[in-house]
């Protein structure tokens, strides 16, 4: 973990720079969750809809949506693959994503189908992750989404 501003950022993980997912890759499978910055900038999550379990989806395809008090947005695949499992606890208690984005607030697990082509497009490595996170934090803050 590295501290960036007030955020604990797990720099051992891959990050999808568009959708702000973290991706923990283990061989041909991965666990996916939302970055601390996306949970912060959305505010308290109140509902999550997940769809496509067992299906093979391409990178960027929607597998559901997530709703906060004043915002709703799609969840888009960070990598191509087949969704093997959703975290059922977050459908009962979406606030888990706010409280523990790297732990109990994970979203789904998947089998990767195009890892060799797509994983290099993710952000990885201490320096790169921290630099990307800092840039995103500034961008989000400039948009007025982060408390001061």
């Amino acid at each position, binding site marked *: 973990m590295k501290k960036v501003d007030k955020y604990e950022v797990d720099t051992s993980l891959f990050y999808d720079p568009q959708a702000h997912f973290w991706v923990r890759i283990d061989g041909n499978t991965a666990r996916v969750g939302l970055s601390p910055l996306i949970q*912060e*900038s*959305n*505010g*308290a999550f*109140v*509902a999550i809809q997940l769809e496509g379990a067992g299906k093979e989806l391409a990178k960027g395809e929607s597998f559901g*949506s997530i*709703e*906060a*008090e*004043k*915002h*709703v*947005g799609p969840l888009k695949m960070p990598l191509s693959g087949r969704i093997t499992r959703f975290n059922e606890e977050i459908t009962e208690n979406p606030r888990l994503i706010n409280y523990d984005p790297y732990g109990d607030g994970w979203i789904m697990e998947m089998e990767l189908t195009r890892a060799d082509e797509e994983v290099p497009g993710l952000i990885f490595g201490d320096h790169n992750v921290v630099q990307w996170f800092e840039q995103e934090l500034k961008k989000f803050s400039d*948009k*007025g*989404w*982060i*408390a*001061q």
Partner: protein
Amino acid sequence: MIPLEVINTETEKKQISPDYVRISAASAMALRMRSGRFARDFDFGGINILLNYDNGCLADCGYCGLARTRPGAYEDKSFIRVEWPLVSTDELVDRMVEHADKMTRLCISQVTHGSAHKDTIEITKKIVSRLDTPLSILCAPPVLNRERLQEYKDLGVDMIGVGLDAVTEKVFRQHRTDVPNGSLRWDNYWDIIHLSREIFGPWKVNIHTVVGLGETDKDMMDIFFYLYDNQILPYLFSFNPEPDSRMANWPKAAIKRWRRIQLIKHLIEKYELQPEALEYDEAGNLTRLKVEDSTISEVIEHLDEGIPFMTDGCPSPDGEVGCTRPYGSYKPSEQYRDFPFKPASNDVVQIRKELALEEIMY
């Protein structure tokens, strides 16, 4: 009428008004006191401030998140489905000053509580001493009388809102009077409405009217005509069930009904649509909108570019709606009931479908 007595509270020990208030989630976001974003980007500067007490609101309205008998501790209760962060009044005023260029309208919402009046005065003084943004008070009639309303006006409050909500005595009684603990009186609300109108003047008093509490279409239209005749503004709200409230399972008004009421209210307000233009069945459901005036026909043709479907609220200094309450009557994942910005062209296309005007204009 004798207002509720002032209750002495040890404010220095408790996070209660006047030293602390709650603010809407959207207000907290606009003031950067809380992180968050809106589903669509737009400028927001309507700050809603809610008085806060340990024992909460002493009323018990069936639809309200703050109702006395709604389960749960008062400090954990949501209001309009979302949390209202508790903040220090001084810090809030500092923040509003810091963001003064974005502020469009400020509003102090009272709750029915014995300290509401004196605390409103304290908070109002703090605000008007440092900000020029227009200030409204959404009042709790049981704690008010003529003198107290006059005090607000003398301090610089420019508009008074009354949360009547239920537009007929029968509906009011059902949800606000015949309740487990903390009943309110229809006559008291109207006394305060008329006193406010007298003290604050024409178009400076607004009445919150909620669609979907059991009233008929005719009930809604009748109160619009009455209020406009008296130069009082009706503000429109769509009932949105609050979880765990007594009306948690009560259905929302159908979108078609809601849209038609929005449109007709706009036609009455801006284009002097007359009662004769509206026909109802025996149950009070709107069955026909007869328009012979060419101006109104044209307005309907273009749906006035979506303006009738925007949020009703107290004005900003430039005369636009200053209090827009984003996502107050619907979830972000639902169709906008009232738009906190001018609807986009694709929104207007959707609204036109929802209106199904061909069913009532023939």
